[in-house]
C-alpha cells in the first residue's frame, strides 16, 4: 500500500487472523508450550524420584543401626568373687577391674541353659553376647556397689549376629553351613525370645562412642568430632585467606595480565579433582613439613586448599554485587580505599561471603578422597581431643564401615550416612536461611 506522500505502508488490514493457516500456527504454538512444560515437569519429577529413592533406601537400611538387641540374663553378683562393696570407691573400682567378668557371665548363661556342656558349645553360648557385655557389667557394679551379693536380671548387649537375626536380616531358613548363626544358637535365641528376655532398644552408644571392631559397639562420635575439628581448621585457614584474596582481587588489584592469569587459575583450581589436593597435602604437609599423619590439622589444611577456590569465587561475586554507587558515595565523602572496603563493601557482601563459605565447608565435610591420601583412613577408637590427635572423619568412617565384612556393618554404614546427611542438610539450611534473611534489593 502506498500512502498519499508516496511512502510504502504495511498492509495491516490484509492479515486474516482467523485463516486456517493462522489457526494451525496457533495450535502448534500451544502444543510446543505444553510439550516443554511437560518435559520440564517430568525432569523435576525424575530428579525428585531419584532423591526419594536414595534417601528412602538409606533411611530404611540405616534406621535399625540406631537400635541394638539386648538379652536379659539373671546374673548373680557373688560376694565371694567380687570385692567388698564397703571399700573406698577408688579401691573398689580398681578391684572390680581385676575380676573376670567373662566367668560370671558364663556361669549365668550355663545356669540359664543347664543342658549345655562341652567346651565348644559353652563358647558358642557365651558368644551370643557381645564382648562389650563384660564392660557393661563392670560399669554397672562400679556404679551400684550395693548389688554385690544379690542376683538380678541384667540387660546385656547381644552379639552382632544375634542382633541381625532379631532384626530379621539373617535368613534362618538357609542351610546351617551357609550362616554364621548355627541351629543351636537359633534354638537358644528362640527360647530366650519365648521368655521375653530379648529386646530391641535405642542404642545411644552409636551416637556417643568411637569406632570399634565389633559392629554392635561402634559409634559415630569419634568421626563426628574428627570432622568437627578438621572443619574448624579448614574454616580458620580458608576463610581469612579466601576473603582477603577476594577483597584484594575485587577492590585493590589493578586489572592487568597478571591478575587475569590469577583469576583464571583460581577458577581452574575449583574444578581440580579433590584427590589431587590430597596428593598435594601429602607432599607438602606430610612430606616437606613433616606434620603428624592422620591428624585433623593436616586434614583441615588439605581441605582448606580444596575449599579456598570456592570461597574466593563466591566472596568475589558477593563483593562485586555490592553496587558501585555505594563505593562512589563513600569515595565522594573522602573515604580511603581501605575505608570504602571495610566500612561499606565487606559488611554488605558478608552474607553472600558466609553463604559461600558454608557451602564450601559442606563440600569439605563430605570429602573423603583427599583425606585417604594423608592417612586419615586409619582405624581409630579414641575420640580425638586436639588438632594433632589421630582422627578420622565421617565420610572416611562410612567408607571404612562399608568395607567391613560383617553383615551388621551394612546398617551401621547407612546410619552413619544419615548422621552425615543430617550435618550437611543443617549446614545448607543455615546457608539458605542466611541468604533469605540478609537478601537485599538495591
Amino acid at each position, binding site marked *: 500500500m502506498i500512502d498519499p506522500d508516496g511512502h510504502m505502508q504495511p498492509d495491516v488490514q490484509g492479515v486474516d487472523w482467523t485463516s486456517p493457516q493462522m489457526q494451525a500456527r496457533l495450535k502448534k504454538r500451544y502444543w510446543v508450550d505444553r510439550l516443554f512444560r511437560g518435559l520440564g515437569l517430568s525432569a523435576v519429577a525424575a530428579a525428585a524420584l531419584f532423591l526419594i529413592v536414595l534417601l528412602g533406601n538409606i533411611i530404611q537400611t540405616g534406621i535399625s543401626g540406631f537400635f541394638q538387641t539386648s538379652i536379659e540374663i539373671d546374673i548373680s553378683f557373688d560376694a565371694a568373687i567380687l570385692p567388698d562393696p564397703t571399700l573406698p570407691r577408688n579401691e573398689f573400682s580398681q578391684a572390680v577391674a581385676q575380676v573376670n567378668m567373662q566367668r560370671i557371665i558364663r556361669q549365668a548363661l550355663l545356669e540359664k541353659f543347664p543342658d549345655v556342656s562341652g567346651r565348644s558349645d559353652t563358647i558358642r553360648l557365651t558368644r551370643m553376647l557381645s564382648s562389650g557385655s563384660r564392660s557393661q557389667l563392670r560399669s554397672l557394679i562400679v556404679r551400684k556397689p550395693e548389688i554385690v551379693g544379690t542376683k538380678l536380671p541384667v540387660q546385656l548387649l547381644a552379639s552382632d549376629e544375634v542382633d541381625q537375626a532379631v532384626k530379621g536380616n539373617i535368613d534362618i531358613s538357609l542351610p546351617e553351613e551357609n550362616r554364621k548363626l548355627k541351629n543351636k544358637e537359633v534354638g537358644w535365641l528362640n527360647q530366650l525370645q519365648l521368655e521375653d528376655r530379648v529386646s530391641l532398644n535405642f542404642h545411644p552408644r552409636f551416637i556417643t562412642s568411637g569406632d570399634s571392631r565389633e559392629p554392635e559397639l561402634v559409634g559415630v562420635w569419634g568421626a563426628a568430632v574428627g570432622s568437627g575439628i578438621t572443619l574448624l581448621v579448614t574454616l580458620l585457614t580458608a576463610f581469612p585467606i579466601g576473603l582477603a584474596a577476594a577483597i584484594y582481587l575485587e577492590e585493590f588489584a*589493578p*586489572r592487568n595480565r597478571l591478575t587475569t592469569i590469577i583469576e583464571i587459575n583460581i577458577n581452574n583450581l575449583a574444578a581440580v579433582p579433590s584427590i589431587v589436593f590430597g596428593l598435594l597435602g601429602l607432599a607438602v604437609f606430610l612430606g616437606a613439613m613433616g606434620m603428624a599423619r592422620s591428624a585433623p590439622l593436616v586434614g583441615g589444611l588439605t581441605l582448606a586448599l580444596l575449599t579456598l577456590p570456592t570461597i574466593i569465587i563466591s566472596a568475589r561475586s558477593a563483593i562485586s554485587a555490592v*553496587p558501585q*554507587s*555505594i563505593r*562512589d*558515595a*563513600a*569515595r*565522594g*565523602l*573522602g*573515604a*580511603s580505599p581501605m*575505608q570504602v572496603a571495610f*566500612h*561499606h563493601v565487606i559488611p*554488605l557482601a558478608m552474607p553472600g561471603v558466609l553463604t559461600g563459605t558454608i557451602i564450601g565447608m559442606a563440600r569439605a565435610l563430605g570429602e573423603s578422597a583427599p583425606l585417604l591420601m594423608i592417612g586419615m583412613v586409619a582405624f581409630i577408637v579414641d575420640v580425638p581431643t586436639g588438632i594433632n590427635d589421630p582422627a578420622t572423619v565421617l565420610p572416611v568412617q562410612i567408607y571404612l564401615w562399608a568395607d567391613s565384612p560383617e553383615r551388621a556393618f551394612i546398617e551401621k554404614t547407612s546410619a552413619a550416612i544419615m548422621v552425615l546427611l543430617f550435618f550437611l542438610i543443617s549446614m545448607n539450611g543455615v546457608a539458605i536461611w542466611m541468604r533469605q534473611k540478609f537478601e*537485599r534489593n538495591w
Partner: protein
Amino acid sequence: MNAVVEPLVATESKPKMTIRDVHVHYEDVHAVKGIDLDLYSDKVTALIGPSGCGKSTLLRCLNRMNDTISDCRVQGQIYLDGQDIYASDIDVVQLRARVGMVFQKPNPFPKSIYDNVAYGPRIHGLATDREALDEIVEASLEKAGLWQEVKDRLDHQGTALSGGQQQRLCIARAIAVNPEVILMDEPCSSLDPIATAKVEALIDELSGRYAIVIVTHSMQQAARVSQKTVFFHLGEMIEYGDTTQIFTAPQQEQTRDYITGRIG
C-alpha cells in the same frame, strides 16, 4: 606553591576553582577538549549540553573521582584556591572532603539516617565527642531541609526514605564534612517534580555558602537554580556566561539551537 591563576573575567571576584586547558581521554575517546572555566564560591554554575558532551566527565575531574577508572587520562590544570589538585603532593581523601559530591541516583548507605550523615565527620575526625557529632548531624539535616521530616526516626534506614528525601539525605551527608565545593551530577534526574522542586529550593538555599556545580539536562532547572551557565557540545565548551545572558541572548548559534530544543 600556590600558583597565581589569572581569572578568565577580570571583573569577577577571586574564583574558588579554576580549570585551565583540561583534556580528558578514555582509551581512544577524547571526551573533554581543552576546557577553561572559573567556579565561584557564591555562585551556582550549571553545566548543560547534550548527552555524551563531557560535562559529567569534567565534573568528576573536579574531585578526582575519575582516578579509579584505570584508562581515564586527565591533562591540564585544575586549581582549588590556587592549588593544583592533580599535583603529586595532594591527598585525594582530603580533596574529596573539600569537594563533595551528590550523585545522579540517590545513594544513601544502607545504614541509619544518623549514620549516613555522621559517616563523613567520623572518618575525618571532625567531631570530638558524641554531642558534637549530634550537632553536626542535626545542622546538616537542617541545612538540607530534612531535619523536620526525620528528626524522630534518625535510627531508621536511610534507604527506606522516599527518593527525594534520599537525595536530600545525600546532600546532608555531603555538607556534613563542611565542603567548600559541592558537585551535583544530575541530582534530580530520578526524582518526581515535587521532590525536584524541594531539591532545587535547597540548592538555592545553599548557593551563598558553597561553590556549587550542577550538571543538568533540564534547561528550566539550569535557568532556575544557576547564576552561571556553561554549554558543552562534543567535549568542547561552546559558551560560558551569566545564566540570564545564556538563556536570553546566547552568543553562539549552537547554544541558541540547544536551548530552543533544535539539537540535543
